[in-house]
Every structure is written in C-alpha cells, then in structure tokens.
C-alpha cells in the first residue's frame, strides 16, 4: 500500500518536471563543502557543483576535521555533510545555524520529513535514510522451504538449516569488525531486547538482564558466521555476499545496490531485502535509523549562508534524485523506491518502528566503550557478566573525563 502510494507520488512528480536543467541560478559566491565520500554524496556534490564556484571535499577524515573547521572564524567550510551521529559535535558547539528563514525562502520543494528540528528550530536538511536490515538469498531460502525470518531466533534457526544443508559457505554474515561496527551491533540489540544504555543521571545501565540477553543473541551468531567475523566490515560482508558465499546478513541498506551490480556480483537478482529481525517477538526491529543531510556553518556571512543554502538545495533537487535513484534511499521528492528499498522501508514503517540512532555525547562515549570491550567477550577471553562490568567501567572513566559524569 505504502509502496504504491510512493510510486504514484514519484510518477506524478516525474510528469511535473520539464527538461533537464543543470542549475537554476548562477552562483557567484565562493562556497566550500565538507562531507563523507560515499556514492550519495558524490551525486549531491556533483549536482551542487553545476551552479559554479562550489568546491566540494569528500574526505574520509571529515569526522576529525569537521568540528574544528566549523569552529574556526570564519568557518573553513560553508556546507557540511553530516549524519545523525556526526551532527552532534556541531550542535553541541553551536557552530551551525538555524535554517528556518532559509528554508522559508528557498526550500519550498522540501518535504516536511526532511527538516531536522531541534527544539522546533530547523538545524539540518536530511536527504536520505540508512538502516541495517535483513538481506537474504531468496533462492536458498525458498529451496529449503524457509519462510523469511522476522526475529533473530528465526534467523538462527534458518542459519542452522542452511548449515545442515551445506548450501552456503557462510550461512550468516555479520559486520562485527571490532570497534565501531561491533559496537553498532550491540546498539541494535540492547534496545531490541528492551534494555537501555543509561539511567537518567548519565550512569550506565547496560549491566542488566537485557544486557545479558543481548550479549547472548550476539554470541549465538558466531556459530554460523565466518571465523574471521571480528575483521569483517560491511565492505567485506558485501563482497562475500556478491561472491555467493553468504546466505543472510543484517547489512546496511546503502549496500543493497551492490548486490545487483553486474560487474561485481555473481548473485544478481537473487538477493531480497526484508525488515531487520526483531530481538523479541512483537518488539521493534533490532536496528537503528540513520539519516544523512546538510548543515550550514554559523561563522560565515549571511550572504554566504544564503548562497550556500541555495547551492545545497540545487544538490538536493528532484533531478539529482532521478539521475541517481538507486544510489540511496532518498527522502527527496521524486524518489521511486525500487525492490532494493523494500527492507529499509519495512524497517522504518514497522510497528513499533525502529528507533533513530540516539546520538548524544554520552552515547558517543558508550559506543567507544562497547567497541573496545566487546571483542574480548566474542573471542571467549571474558564471560558475559565480566564484559558488562568492563563496559560500564570503561564508560565511567571516559564520562568522567568528558565531564558527563561527576
């Protein structure tokens, strides 16, 4: 139903626009942008560059550079590409400006869904969403008569059947590279089990029954994953998927397109997407929703901000989306969700829906603590209870140093 509506909306907007126009206006102000470097950003910054005088930097070190560069006066960049994680330091330092007046002036075509509001003020304009969800080899599952798994228990049951049948080298792929990726798995799993990371006073709350349950679910995966799972990042899982080695994985939606890339993939057309599995039946999908979008620096003149926002709007227009429809799950008007987007949409529209990634100062500290302490649990060096204690200790040390805890 939802899909139909969306497709209809897309078709209507398709008819609405006329011929392709590179940029609606001639930009004369020098504009610089700094963002991450993946495919969607390439598409957006290319579209922005058509307006002239735009210097787009797609930098893998942007996380380190962005907070400092926006704090300089004048700011070194006008436009910043952020996600709901990386916008936090900019919000905290107050180095990005509210966009309400600019949106009113130039953002008529934006969907209300795109406007990221903090305390009622528009602070960023989102362009796409991303989430981890279930990808599976439709051929393998239907051969074995397995229904699409909806919970992690069902995923493991399916993996056991696949392993028994011996039809895939790796029944279950997982992005558990130690550090950020592994921590993200726990960030999915703990709320999925109904647990929480913090008490109201910022003290940690992971050492709980839900924490134990989440760890148990994580560890259960190891029986079916590649033995080298602690070095597998999403690119590696994607590659194994493409080579036909993996039968199922909880993988990022932005990776879906690669499965049907003729030049790389040996499983074109065989991979289907479904909502992220739930940790407990009837709960929310055990995953988090992410968005990517743009912000405008505060420490620049109003003229520059004006030009920067106009340029950014050119980058986020329908033409760009139509030319790059499958590069991301766009929020921009004109997007036609294909079959590859089914899983992500199912995840986002589930009831209860998957939560957004809770990006806060304390969550950043917790994410690091998880990433550093979880590997010892998965290698078997430490048991679950000791791991939860170690996570809390690591978090408390970091939180005291950051001033979050007294």
């Amino acid at each position: 139903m939802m899909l139909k509506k969306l497709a209809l909306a897309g078709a209507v907007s398709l008819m609405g626009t006329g011929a392709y126009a590179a940029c609606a206006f001639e930009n004369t102000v020098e504009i610089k942008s700094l963002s991450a470097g993946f495919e969607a950003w390439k598409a957006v910054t290319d579209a922005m560059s058509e307006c002239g005088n735009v210097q787009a930097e797609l930098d893998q070190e942007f996380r380190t550079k962005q907070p400092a560069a926006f704090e300089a006066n004048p700011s070194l960049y006008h436009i910043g590409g952020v996600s709901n994680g990386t916008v936090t330091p900019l919000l905290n330092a107050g180095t990005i400006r509210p966009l309400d007046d600019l949106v009113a002036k130039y953002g008529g075509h934006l969907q209300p869904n795109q406007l990221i509001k903090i305390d009622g003020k528009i602070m960023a304009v989102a362009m796409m969403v991303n989430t981890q969800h279930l990808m599976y080899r439709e051929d393998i599952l239907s051969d074995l008569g397995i229904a699409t798994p909806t919970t992690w228990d069902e995923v493991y049951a399916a993996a056991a059947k696949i392993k028994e049948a011996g039809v895939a080298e790796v029944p279950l792929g997982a992005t558990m590279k130690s550090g950020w990726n592994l921590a993200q798995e726990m960030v999915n799993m703990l709320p999925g089990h109904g647990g929480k990371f913090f008490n109201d006073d910022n003290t940690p709350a992971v050492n709980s029954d839900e924490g134990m349950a989440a760890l148990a679910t994580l560890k259960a995966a190891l029986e079916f994953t590649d033995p080298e799972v602690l070095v597998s990042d999403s690119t590696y899982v994607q590659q194994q998927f493409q080579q036909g080695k993996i039968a199922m994985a909880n993988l990022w939606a932005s990776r879906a397109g690669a499965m049907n890339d003729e030049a790389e993939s040996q499983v074109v057309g065989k991979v289907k997407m479904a909502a992220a599995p739930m940790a407990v039946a009837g709960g929310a999908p055990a995953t988090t929703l992410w968005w990517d979008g743009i912000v405008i620096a505060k420490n620049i003149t109003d003229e520059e901000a004006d030009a920067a926002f106009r340029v950014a709007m050119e980058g986020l227009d329908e033409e760009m989306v139509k030319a790059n429809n499958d590069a991301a799950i766009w929020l921009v008007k004109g997007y036609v969700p294909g079959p590859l987007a089914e899983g992500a949409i199912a995840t986002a529209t589930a009831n209860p829906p998957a939560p957004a990634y809770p990006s806060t100062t304390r969550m950043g500290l917790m994410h690091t603590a998880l990433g550093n302490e979880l590997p010892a649990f998965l290698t078997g060096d430490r048991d679950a209870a000791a791991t939860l204690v170690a996570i809390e200790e690591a978090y408390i040390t970091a939180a005291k140093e950051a001033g979050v805890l007294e």
Partner: protein
Amino acid sequence: MSSVSRALRQPFGLRFASGAFLAFWCLLAAFPIVWIAVMSIKSPRDAFASSPWDVIVGPATLARGEGLSILDIVLGLVVLYFAIRWAFTRLPGLVMQYSPPSLIVLGWLVGAAVYALVFLLVFFGLLPLILGALNSVLGPLGEPVLGLTTQHYVAVWGENEFYRNFLNSLFVTAGVVTVSLTVGTLAGYGLARSGSDLAFWLLIAALVFRALPHSVLVAGYLPWFINSAEILRPIFGDLSPTLYGQPWAVIAVMVSINQPFTIWMLRSFFQNIPSELDEAARVDGCSHFQAFRRVIMPVMWPGVITTGLFAFLLAYNDFLVTSLLLDAQNQTMVPAIAGYFNRETTTTDQVEAVAAAVSITAPLFLLVMVFQRQIVSGLTAGAVKG
C-alpha cells in the same frame, strides 16, 4: 696468493644454498607487489576470486572480450625485458655523458623522467597499435587468452583526476627533500665538526624526538593549523594565513619530523670526510661557511643523495600527516588511495584503489632503478656509522 683464492672459493653446496636462498627471497619480496599488479588489471569479480588461477587468467574479464593474446604476451615481455636492461646498462652512461658533472642529480632526474615518458609512450601507445593490427591478421594466435582490462587505470587517472594528486605529491615530496637536505646538511656538518657535549645532547634529543609517536604530534597540530588565521592576526594582520590545507605547511611539518634521521645520517657521513680537508681550507683563510661550500660540498653528494632518498620515501609514502593536514584540493596520493577504502566502499572502488596503488609504486621503481648504485655507494662512503 693462489691458496687464498682457493680458500675463498666456495664448495658447491654452499653456493647452491646461497643461490637458492636468494631466489626464495626475491620471490618473497616481489610476489605481493606483482600480485596486486595482476589484481589491478582484472574485473572486480576476478580480482577477488578465491582461486589464484582465476585471478591470473581472469575468466570474467575475458568474457567481456578484454584480454591479451599469446602474441601480445610474448612481444610485451620482450619489450619489457629490453626496456629494463637498457635502463640498467645504457641509461647511466647517457646521463653521465650529457649532464654537467655539477648538476648530476638533476641530470638523473631528467633522464629518469624522459625514460619514463618514452616507456609509457612505447608500451601503452605504440605497442597496442601494432599488436591490434597483428592480432587481427594472425587468427588463433591473436585470440585473447589472458584477461586484462585497463578500465581501472582509466577510471583512476581519468574520471578521478588522480594526476592532480600526483602533482600535489610531487610538489610536497620535492619540497620536503630540498628543504630537509638544505637544513639537514648544514646541521649535520656542524654536528660532525663540533666535538662539544652540546652537540651530543642535541643528537640525543633529536633521537628521542624521532621516537615520538607521530600521531600524537599531528593530532596536536590540527586545531592550531585550522585556527592559525585567528591566532596570528594580532601579529601579521589580515595577511595571516590558514595553515590547514597549505602544502608548504605540511612540508615544514614533515621536514621537522624527518630532521632527526637526516642529521644522524649526514653527521656520520661528514665524520667520515677527513677534517684535514676543511682545516686546510681554513688555514688558507676561509671561514667555516666558505670551507663548507668550497671543500665539503663537492664531495658530499653520495651521502646527500642517500639521505635524500630516505627523505623522499618518507614524504612520498606519508599518510598520517597529509591525510589530516591537507584539504581535498591539495590532497596527495596516499590519502587519496585510502579514501577509496572508507566505510561506504564497493569492490570496484577497491580494485581502483589497487590500480592507483600500483601507479604510485611505479615512480618508486624508477627512482630505485636510477639511484641504486648511489644508495650503495653513499652508504659505503659511511653515511651509516652508527
């Protein structure tokens, strides 16, 4: 005398073992590099195939009709063999002949660049043309048997404008080598000729500095570099620059980080130049600087070239400093390659990164080929006496 030479002659077993070890080592040294070179000319599916045979032959690449015939391979290898042989045998002679002795280093660089250019033209311009014609005539011999595609190189150098990174690298590297050697030669000479304890403690301090983890230093620079315009405004007014993103600021950082090693190498080298030489000049009424310029400079090149090569390697291969302190406009090659490996990357990106990696290794090859003798002779002349 004859007894001595007989004693020096080795039994067959030892000679065989020595040769076998050397062959094994050469295989070990070259294999990973040759392997990534092979990966870089295959389609992504072949490059990461699990059977080595698939990687070498490249069925998926062949299926797209891109490949080499037997004739291509044979002719290509023959041309390659002669090109390399010529580089080792005739090139040095030509350079010696045509460049003035005082500018021998420059002569070598020009020689190497010209050689690289001619090689590229012949191997990638002329050869494919001739072979294309031959292959169509020859029938079965001209059928492609070995998958090969240059698409990744085209993508890297064409679409991704990798030549800009190449030029940036060239600028940064040239800057680091020049400044590093200028500053380092003076300091090395001063340290070698001063027997004072101060000189010794300076050296020790430099050594401890060298031991510092670079990441700590570099992460410390970032806020200063980004805010330098604001910080320096009271002193330089509106002319104060933002150091972040400036190649010359990065050059200064890398020269400093490399200074300890440079002055250690050069100090030991100068110690091996008899101090009688400059003392004689001093007796003739030269100041220290004049003695350095007239007497030491003409004989110091072997050591300086060797040290310069190490500075070159450091600057050319650097990732930490350049990735953090340069913006995209001035990005050098290594961080640009690392950029292909970020969180959202595809297999095609990875093979393109491999192609870029192989491309940046080529100038290193050339440099070592050209300066190989100088490295050994420079080191022999005593640049490394502890």
